[in-house]
């Protein structure tokens, strides 16, 4: 008798008692049981991956939204010493969520940190949202924000 080298599955050789690897009444490891043990191990490995992935939100998407200078409008506000500038831009998800996701945005600044007052999302639906940005001045060309949308888990 011998064993194949990958998993040690039993292989019969000429001269062996015929059928020992498939007959439980003969001495030796049953081929079927050796295969079943390996299948069980692989299935357990696979199930571990499924469990790990299954615990994560089923839909996570991310991107960047640019708000060009032309979309910014002055917003008078006595809260500040001078009017601020408000811009918005709609984003459509590449594929819809099953329900409105949680959306977070962070401005990606290339200069002058401190000028952006607020970045937010509103009108969030399964298919998209509108990113907003409020700053003390309109951008020279555009403001860009990174966004991540995640299926809500609670």
């Amino acid at each position, binding site marked *: 008798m011998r064993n194949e080298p990958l998993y040690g599955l039993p292989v019969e050789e000429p001269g062996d008692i015929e059928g020992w690897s498939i007959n439980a009444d003969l001495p030796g490891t049953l081929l079927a049981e050796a295969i079943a043990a390996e299948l069980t191990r692989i299935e357990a490995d696979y199930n571990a991956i499924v469990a790990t992935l299954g615990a994560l939100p089923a839909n996570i998407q991310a991107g960047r939204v640019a708000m060009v200078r032309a979309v910014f409008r002055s917003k008078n506000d006595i809260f500040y010493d001078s009017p601020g500038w408000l811009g918005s831009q709609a984003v459509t998800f590449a594929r819809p969520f099953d329900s409105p996701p949680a959306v977070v945005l*962070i401005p990606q600044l290339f200069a002058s940190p401190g000028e952006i007052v607020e970045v937010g999302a509103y009108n969030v639906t399964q298919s998209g949202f509108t990113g907003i940005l409020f700053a003390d001045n309109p951008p020279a060309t555009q403001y860009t924000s990174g966004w991540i949308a995640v299926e809500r888990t609670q």
Partner: protein
Amino acid sequence: MPFESSYGLPYEAGSDLPGWSLTGGPDGSQPVLAEAVAAQLRRLDNLVQGLTDQFGLFPTSIQAGAASITPATNIVNTFYNANYFRGTVVVNFAQAFGSTPAVVVTPNTTVPGVVIEASVSGPTSALCTLNLARQTSTATGVFWIASDQTQ
């Protein structure tokens, strides 16, 4: 010699030499069932290992939600031209993280330009506190995402 159609595993027919699929035949030149099965097991193992390698670097837990904060505390200050309002809400994670996660938050407001700050305080594996400051005391929505830290 016949082979089944899904994986090409050999099996024996009535006219075959009995046991050749177990031995490879008298001269060992025929396909051996055990070796054919082992090759398929190795292929499956490699596929599973590929998945493990691909997704093993993912955060093990990512949670997300929405909350509402009523900024009821009036804050007198000199930085702005008027008082502002501050509020907090505690978020208890539906499932505790293995360690303190990274938490990010963004206001979900229907009146853009009024919120001053949305931030996070005191995250633990079980909860975090979301903060919101705005010009008025109107209840304001926030979105949050918490993820296992990967570094």
